[in-house]
C-alpha cells in the first residue's frame, strides 16, 4: 500500500468513525437455538418489533445466539464490548448466564437491560447503577402466587420445584407470601420428565392446592401427566408453564389452571392493544410474556435515547430510571434497585375459539416491589 492510499484509507476510517459517533449500538445475546430457544426468539421478536416501529436508522442491533451456554455468552459479551463497542446490552434469558455476563459488562461501563432473568444477587447486594431489569425479580411471580393462594382460601399447599437455585428460590418466594400450611415440599431432578411418583404423593397428601415451578418441557410433562392421573386438586403456577409458546404443547390439560403474570395479552391499555395487534400482524402468532418483555425493553431504551446518548452516561441513566415509556403492562416504575414496581395478575387458562390462551381473573399483588431492594447500596 502506498503512502497515498494509506492516507486516504486512514481518512476514510476517521470520517467513518465520526459518522458513527452518535449512532447507538445495542448488543443482544439471547437463546435462539437448543433447549428453551422459544423464549429467546420471543424476546428478540418483541424487541425488534419496537425498534422497527421506531423507524430510527441510527440504531444498530447486533444479535448473537448463546445456545444457553454460559461460556459462549461470556465470549460473545467480551467481543461485543471490546470489538463492536456496544453501548447497551440486553437479551439474556437464564439467570446463570446473566450472572456470568452482567456484572462484568456493567463494570466495563456498558448499560445492561435484562428482558427476563432477574437473579436475587443482582437485585440485592450485587446491584449496579448501569443494570436495569425490565421484567421482574425472579421471586416476584412466586410471591404473587403465594398471595393468590391466601385470597383463594387455600390452607394446605403441596409445593414442588426442581432441585437447583431458581427452584429453591421459587418455593421460598411462594412461602414468603403464603400464610397456610405446607403439606409437603418436594424437590425433583432438573430436567426430569416423568412425575408419576410425585403425582402419586400429591394424590395421597390431602393438600387443597398444588404450587409448582417447572419451566420448559418439565412443566409440559407434569401438567399433562397430572391431568392424565385424574387428580382434582387445583394447580397454581407462575406464568412460565402456561405461556403462549408452551400452551399448545400442554394442550387442554392446562384448561382452568390459575397462573401469575405481570402481563397478559388481554390487558386493556392502549399500548398493549396496539402491541398485540402489531405482533400478530408481523409474526402471525399471539405474543407471549417474553415478547412483551422484549418489546418493553426496546421501548424503554428508545425513550431514554430521546433524552440522551449513552455516552452521556449520567443523563442516559436518569432517563432510563424515569421509565418514561408506554409499557404494555400499563403502570410501570423502577424501584431504588432498578427493578420493576408493578402489578402482578392472576390469569386463567381458557379456550378462545380454538386457541388456548390466558385471561386475567384478578390482581394478586398491586405495585409490588422485590424483597431485596433493601440490600442494594447504589
Amino acid at each position, binding site marked *: 500500500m502506498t503512502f497515498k492510499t494509506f492516507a486516504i484509507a486512514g481518512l476514510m476510517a476517521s470520517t467513518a468513525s465520526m459518522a458513527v459517533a452518535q449512532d447507538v449500538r445495542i448488543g443482544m445475546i439471547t437463546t435462539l*437455538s*437448543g*433447549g428453551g*430457544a*422459544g423464549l429467546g*426468539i420471543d424476546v428478540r421478536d418483541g424487541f425488534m418489533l419496537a425498534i422497527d416501529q421506531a423507524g430510527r436508522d441510527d440504531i444498530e442491533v447486533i444479535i448473537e445466539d448463546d445456545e444457553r451456554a454460559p461460556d459462549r455468552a461470556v465470549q460473545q459479551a467480551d467481543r461485543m464490548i471490546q470489538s463492536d463497542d456496544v453501548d447497551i446490552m440486553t437479551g439474556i434469558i437464564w439467570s446463570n448466564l446473566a450472572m456470568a455476563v452482567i456484572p462484568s459488562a456493567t463494570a466495563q461501563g456498558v448499560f445492561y437491560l435484562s428482558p427476563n432473568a432477574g437473579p436475587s444477587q443482582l437485585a440485592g447486594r450485587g446491584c449496579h447503577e448501569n443494570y436495569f431489569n425490565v421484567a421482574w425479580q425472579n421471586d416476584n411471580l412466586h410471591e404473587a402466587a403465594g398471595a393468590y393462594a391466601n385470597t383463594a382460601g387455600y390452607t394446605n399447599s403441596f409445593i414442588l420445584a426442581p*432441585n437447583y437455585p431458581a427452584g*429453591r428460590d421459587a418455593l421460598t418466594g411462594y412461602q414468603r407470601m403464603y400464610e397456610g400450611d405446607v403439606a409437603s*415440599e*418436594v*424437590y*425433583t*431432578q432438573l*430436567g426430569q*420428565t*416423568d412425575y*408419576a*411418583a*410425585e403425582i*402419586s*404423593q400429591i*394424590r*395421597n397428601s390431602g393438600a387443597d392446592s398444588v404450587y409448582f415451578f417447572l419451566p*420448559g*418441557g*418439565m412443566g*409440559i*410433562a407434569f401438567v*399433562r*401427566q397430572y391431568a*392424565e*392421573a*385424574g387428580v382434582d386438586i387445583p394447580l397454581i403456577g407462575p406464568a412460565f408453564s402456561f405461556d403462549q*409458546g*408452551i400452551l*399448545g*404443547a*400442554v*394442550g387442554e390439560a392446562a384448561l382452568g389452571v390459575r397462573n401469575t403474570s405481570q402481563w397478559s395479552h388481554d390487558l386493556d391499555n392502549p399500548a398493549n392493544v396496539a402491541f398485540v395487534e402489531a405482533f400478530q400482524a408481523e409474526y402471525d402468532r399471539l405474543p407471549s410474556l417474553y415478547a412483551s418483555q422484549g418489546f418493553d425493553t426496546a421501548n424503554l431504551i428508545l425513550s431514554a435515547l430521546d433524552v440522551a446518548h449513552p455516552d452521556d452516561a449520567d443523563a442516559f441513566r436518569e432517563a432510563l430510571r424515569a421509565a418514561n415509556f408506554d409499557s404494555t403492562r400499563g403502570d410501570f416504575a423502577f424501584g431504588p434497585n432498578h427493578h420493576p414496581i408493578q402489578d402482578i395478575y392472576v390469569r386463567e387458562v381458557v379456550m378462545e375459539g380454538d386457541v388456548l390462551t390466558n385471561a386475567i381473573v384478578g390482581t394478586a399483588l398491586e405495585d409490588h416491589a422485590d424483597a431485596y431492594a433493601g440490600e442494594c447500596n447504589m
Partner: protein
Amino acid sequence: MSAALLIEQLLNGLQFGVMLFVMAAGLTLIFGVMGLINLAHGSLYMIGAFAAAGAAAYTGSFWLALVAALMAAAIVGAIVEMVVIRRLYDRDHLDQVLATFALILIFSEGTRFVFGSLPLYLDTPSVLSGPTTLPGGIEYSKYRLFIIAVGLAVGAGLYGLIARTRLGIQIRAGEADREMIAALGVDIRKLYTLVFALGAALAGLAGAMIGAIQAVEVGMGEPVLILAFVVIVIGGIGSIKGAFVGALLVGLTDTLGRVLLPQVFGLVMDASSATTVGASLASMSIYILMAGILLFKPSGLFGGTP
C-alpha cells in the same frame, strides 16, 4: 406410607422400567450383534416422537401415529445404517462415538429445522385417557398401564424372536462369531441393517409412547439415552434378558428412591434439609446401584466373561 400408595409407586417404577427396557433393548441388541456404540439411539427416540406428533396432527389418530413412529424410526435407522454406520464396524469405539455423536447434532438441528423450536403436542387416545380403578381401590392412569402392557409384550416378542426364529438364530450366531456366520453364507450386511432398523423402531416406539405424556421437543432423547446405557451396563452388554432385569431395577430404584429417601432422611434431620439431601441422593441412586453391581459383577448381571 399406606399400602395403596406403595403399590401405586411400584406400578410407577414398573412403568418407567419397561419404557427403559424398550429403549435399551435396541441399544444392547445393536451393541451385542454389531459391536457398535450408538449414541444416536436417543435421536431415533426423538424421531419416533416427532413422527407420531406429526402424524397425529395430520390424521388425528393415536394408533396411526404409533405406526408412523415405528415406520419412521425404522426407515431412518435403516438409511443411517447403510449410509453411515456400515463404515464404522471395523473402526474402534472412539470413532463410533464421534460419528454417532455427530449424528445427534445433525438430527437435533434437522428436527428443529423441520418442526421448529417450540415443543409439539401429542395426545393420548381417548380410550386410554384418565384413571381407572384397580382392585384394592387404587386409582391409576390407564395410559401408564398401557405402556406397561406394551413393554411386557415387546419383551415377550423379543424373547420369542431371538429364541425361536431363524432370524434369532442368526442374531445369536452374529453375536458369537461374526466371521463364521458370514462364511456360512448368511448375508451379514442385510442382517445388520435389519437389526439396526429393529432397534431403531423400538426406540421410536418408546419415543412415541412417552411423547404422549411428556413434551415432544428437540433434545428429549439424550437424558433417556444415558439411562438406557446405565441399564445395559447393569444388565450386561448385549443381553436382552439383562436389559429387561436392568431396566426394572433402574426404574424401581429411581422411583422408590425419589419417594422414600426424603422420608428416610426426615427421620434424622429437619424437613427442609431432608428434602434437599434426599432429592440429591435420589438422583444419584441409580448410579450408586450401577457401581454396586459392577463391583461384584464387572461385566453386568447377565454379561459374559470379559
